[in-house]
């Protein structure tokens, strides 16, 4: 019997010797652990240092003792003790017990776990994310700060994702940190209205993280931001399981991410939705996204993320581009126009309307948009496409030329050049 238990232990420790496993456990635990430590110490730097120390101890302890049952609680407790121990040593008092005792565990963990119930985690994590959304911080700093503090990406990883130097990113994050250090961080538990407002701000920031990655193309350092955003959204969804817009935001990102393998060709050039090989779409992500959207809509509390996720889901359901339910998409964009009026939404709607009622209808719909969208690549791209379909080649060419001038990525410019080649070939 003893023999068998011994060999079982060896098996377990072999499993945990896989450094990837410890890494992913630490990554998954980080938002909850750091945010609980922040509540305890009320100081971001102390919380981060305490968490770092806990991680170092985990890397030493877990391979030998096996991972704790509740890694988050372990990291909080060890991090807190490490930081307190430091303070006590400075004031020459008695040190706390070594964490081998804590890692040995069940008994030591239980009381802490009881105190750290889910509702505490919830508001802790939300607070940590919300701090990063401070309205005085520009969007790029909010995103950088969240990735550094909440996701725990290294400064060099974030710098690569934003295509800036490590020194510049270091400076950006330091500046953002000092700005929020001066701000009042609300540590009392939020009321329902405030909680809703925080969630909305945090949802916007998470979608910003996603879009940074989504528009980045094939660069893996940047594209990983999409995974990070989805991870944060899933975490929030577990903590706030009844928020339809949170379900829908997660669904929207999953549905967009499901097309990743089809969105770029082997040269890294963007492939338009209509030309994508739909067999490359990730069916698992689609089913998760559709299931979440389905859940969200049951609440009968429509919101912009639900509408956008429904548009994405309509594309996911179409076996081919020709089978796309344009009438459904047109209606959904009309709903989005009412909720969040914006020329870009109308432009998107015009594409659906043109599919339904022809290019003249699309042109008519976007006619009033030229002024607000005069600097927008997609406006001239879309108008040129309508004009081309109507055989108005000269005007189409002029708009394609304008679009090239406004392209922000080489892929966009290359795409327009292909259209110009088409036009030339037609003549």
């Amino acid at each position, binding site marked *: 019997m003893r023999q068998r238990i011994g060999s079982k232990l060896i098996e377990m420790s072999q499993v945990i010797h896989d450094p990837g496993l410890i890494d*992913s*456990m630490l990554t998954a635990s980080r938002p909850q652990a750091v945010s609980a430590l922040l509540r305890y110490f009320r100081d971001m730097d102390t919380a981060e240092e305490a968490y770092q120390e806990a991680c170092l101890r985990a890397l030493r302890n877990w391979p030998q003792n096996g991972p704790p049952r509740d890694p988050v609680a372990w990291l909080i407790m060890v991090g807190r003790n490490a930081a307190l121990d430091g303070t006590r040593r400075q004031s020459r008092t008695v040190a706390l017990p070594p964490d081998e005792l804590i890692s040995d565990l069940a008994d030591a963990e239980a009381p802490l776990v009881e105190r750290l119930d889910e509702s505490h985690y919830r508001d802790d994590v939300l607070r940590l994310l919300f701090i990063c959304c401070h309205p005085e911080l520009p969007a790029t700093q909010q995103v950088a700060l969240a990735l550094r503090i909440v996701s725990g990406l290294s400064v060099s990883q974030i710098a690569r994702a934003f295509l800036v130097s490590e020194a510049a990113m270091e400076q950006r994050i330091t500046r953002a940190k000092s700005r929020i250090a001066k701000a009042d961080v609300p540590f009392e538990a939020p009321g329902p209205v405030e909680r809703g407002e925080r969630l909305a701000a945090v949802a916007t920031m998470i979608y910003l993280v996603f879009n940074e990655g989504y528009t980045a193309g094939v660069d893996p350092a940047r594209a990983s931001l999409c*995974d990070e955003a989805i991870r944060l959204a*899933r975490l929030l969804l*577990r903590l706030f399981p*009844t928020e339809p817009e949170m379900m829908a935001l997660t669904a929207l990102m999953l549905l967009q991410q499901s097309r990743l393998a089809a969105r770029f060709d082997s040269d890294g050039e963007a492939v338009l939705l209509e030309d994508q090989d739909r067999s490359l779409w990730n069916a*698992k992500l689609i*089913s998760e996204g559709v299931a979440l959207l*389905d*859940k969200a809509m049951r609440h009968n509390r429509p919101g912009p993320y639900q509408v956008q996720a429904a548009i994405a889901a309509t594309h996911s359901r179409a076996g081919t581009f020709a089978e796309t339910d344009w009438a459904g998409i047109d209606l959904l964009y009309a709903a989005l126009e009412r909720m969040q009026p914006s020329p870009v939404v109308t432009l998107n709607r015009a594409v659906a309307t043109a599919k339904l009622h022809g290019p003249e209808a699309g042109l008519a719909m976007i006619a009033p948009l030229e002024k607000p969208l005069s600097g927008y690549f997609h406006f001239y791209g879309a108008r040129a496409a309508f004009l081309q379909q109507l055989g108005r080649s000269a005007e189409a060419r002029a708009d394609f030329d304008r679009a090239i001038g406004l392209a922000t990525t080489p892929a966009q410019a290359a795409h327009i050049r292909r259209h110009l080649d088409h036009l030339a070939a037609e003549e």
Partner: protein
Amino acid sequence: MLYTLLCYNKEDVVWSWSKEEDDAVMGRLNVVHEKLVKEGKLGPALRLLPTTTATTLRGQDLVIDGPFAETKEQLLGFYVIDVPNLDAALAVARELSAANPTSTYEIRPVALYVPEARPNAPKDRVKAY
């Protein structure tokens, strides 16, 4: 004897696996699956979507977003049903709940369905006891 093997893990970790990591695990599992198919041992198998997609029905009217979270009740059985959406699944759960009112039903969409592979699988109901 028929057995059900229920697989547990940390979903925040598993659902953060990269495609390569996920494929590697699924590849190793598929080797086992194929062996079990050859041995005529494998019945239907499922991979579930994460608990964030779950909805729970208590009684006829109490619909809760999220998984079944009580620790005082135990898993006693499960159904696989084929319906178009969550509302239809909830309707089935309500029928079951009406017949068995003290039970709670967690509705969890399926990510991957591996069908029955035993060549002589009984078509009639099977009692394991």
